[in-house]
C-alpha cells in the first residue's frame, strides 16, 4: 500500500540523509549532524480546558512544560483564551485572564479542611471523612426541615433549608446528574451549568 511505503520513505536519519537531495546536489550536512549531538528535546503541552469561574464557560488554552503524555508532572506557565472557542474567541475577562495566579496561589484550596465549632484551627481531613460529614449534616437538616405537605394538604416534598452551588466547567452529563441528585432530595435552591 502506498501509505506504508510513504511512511517508510519519511524516516529521517543521518543515514537516509546521505541519499537525500541535499547530499546528491553536493552540499554537506556534516556540521548539522555534528551539531545535533549537543541538542536535547524539550517537551511542552497546550491543553484545552474551560474557565471555572462563571456559566459563560469560556474556552482556555493552558501552556505547560513537561511530559503529560508520559504521566510526568507538568507545570502550567501560561493560560490564555482559546482562539478557536466559539464562546470567547480567544478573549477572557479580567478574572479569566488571571487564572494562572489562581492556579499557583499559595492559598488555593487543594484538599478538604474542617474547622470544628468554636475552634480557630482548620484541620486537614480525607475526602471520605468530608463526604461522611457533609452527608451527616445534610441528613440532619433534611430530617428536621423537609416539607412533605403544605398546611392545606398539598404534597410538595421540598427541602428549602439547604442549597447547592456547582461548577461552571461541568459537562452536560455532570449537570444532568447534579440536577437529578439534588432534585430527588427535594432541594430547590441550586445553581449549576445545567441551567445554561
Amino acid at each position, binding site marked *: 500500500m502506498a501509505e506504508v511505503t510513504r511512511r517508510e*520513505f519519511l524516516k*529521517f536519519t543521518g543515514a537516509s540523509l546521505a541519499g537525500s*537531495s541535499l547530499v546528491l546536489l553536493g552540499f554537506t550536512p556534516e556540521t548539522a549532524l555534528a551539531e545535533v549531538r549537543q541538542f536535547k528535546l524539550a517537551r511542552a503541552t497546550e491543553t484545552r480546558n474551560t474557565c471555572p469561574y462563571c456559566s459563560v464557560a469560556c474556552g482556555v488554552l493552558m501552556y505547560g512544560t513537561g511530559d503529560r503524555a508520559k504521566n510526568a508532572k507538568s507545570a502550567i506557565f501560561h493560560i490564555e483564551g482559546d482562539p478557536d472557542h466559539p464562546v470567547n474567541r480567544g478573549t477572557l475577562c479580567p478574572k479569566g485572564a488571571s487564572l494562572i495566579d489562581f492556579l499557583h496561589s499559595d492559598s488555593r484550596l487543594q484538599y478538604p479542611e474542617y474547622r470544628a465549632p468554636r475552634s480557630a484551627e482548620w484541620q486537614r481531613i480525607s475526602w471520605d471523612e468530608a463526604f461522611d460529614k457533609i452527608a451527616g449534616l445534610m441528613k440532619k437538616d433534611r430530617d428536621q426541615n423537609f416539607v412533605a405537605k403544605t398546611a392545606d394538604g398539598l404534597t410538595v416534598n421540598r427541602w428549602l433549608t439547604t442549597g447547592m452551588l456547582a461548577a461552571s466547567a461541568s459537562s452536560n452529563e455532570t449537570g444532568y446528574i447534579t440536577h437529578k441528585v439534588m432534585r430527588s432530595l427535594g432541594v430547590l435552591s441550586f445553581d449549576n451549568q445545567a441551567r445554561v
Partner: protein
Amino acid sequence: MQRILEPGQIEALASRSVPRLVLPARERVFAARATRLEALASRDPLGGYLTFAAALARAQHDAAAGLAPGAPEPGVQAAARAHGMPILPARGLRRGAEWRDALAAILAALGGGRFPAPVARAGLLLGAEPVALLEARAERLLAADGRDAEPAAAPFVIAALQVYWVVLASGRALGDVPLDAAAAVCPVCGMLPLASIVRSHAPYAGYRYLQCGLCASEWHRVRVECTQCGATDGISYQSIEGGPAAIRAETCERCRCYRKIFYQEHDDGVEAVADDLASMALDLLLAAAGYQRASAHPLLWQPAG
C-alpha cells in the same frame, strides 16, 4: 500575548468569523521565502543548502512573474464545487505546459558556477529531458507524495510545479473554494500540508493555519489536534532545548507522527518552507525519539525504501 480590549472591540470581535482560508499571492510567496532563507543562511549548518534554496526561491519568484497559465478546466472545477473537493486538484487537473516553462526558467537561473557541480549537472540533465519524461516525473511527485522521487531532480521539478500551482491558486476567489471543517489536505490542490503556522496579526491572530506544500494556500485548523490522524489526546510540542521558541514540532502519541508548528508571535518573519528546512536538527532528534514526519519537505527528498 495579552492585550486589553477597548469598548467597541468586544462587539466587533464577537461578530467576526474565523478566516478559514488564506490564498497565496503570487507576487509575495516566493519573495518572502527567499528573503527568509537568505536571512537563515547566514548561520547555515547545512553547508550552503539554505543559500541554494534561497536562490531557488528567487528563481521561482521570477518565473511566477512571467507565467500566464491557461484557465483550468471548468469541468473539473464545477465537479469539485459540487462535491466539496479541491478545486485545482494536483492529481486530477490537466497541467498546462507552462509549468515546464517555469522549470526551464528556474534551471537557467540556477546555472553557472555559484553552487556545487552536481547542481549544474542535475540542471543540465533535466533541461535536456524529453517532455514525456518530465511529465512522468511530475506525475510521480504529485501522485504519491514523492515516494518514487529521484532526490537530485525532485527539488527542481517540485519548484516548477509550486510556481504553476501558486499562480493558479492566487487567481482564485475565496468563495470558490469549498471548505471542510477539519481538512487534512489542501482545499485548493488536495496535497498534504507541510507545516502549521500560528499567526499573530489580525484578523488571523491566534489561529493555526496549515500551509500547503505545493500551492502555499493556508487553511484554518483547530489548535491542539494531530493534523495527521485527528487525535486530541497525547499532543505535545517538542523543540530543541534552548532553541528558537518559534519552532516546535506538534507530535502525536497515537500515530507517532509530527508536523512542525511555527509561532509567528515569537518570530514575525517565520516562513513554513524556509524554517522547516532550516530546523533539520529537530527532525533528526525526533527521528531518534521514534517519530516520523507526516509529510516530506519539498527540498529534502530521500531515497525510497
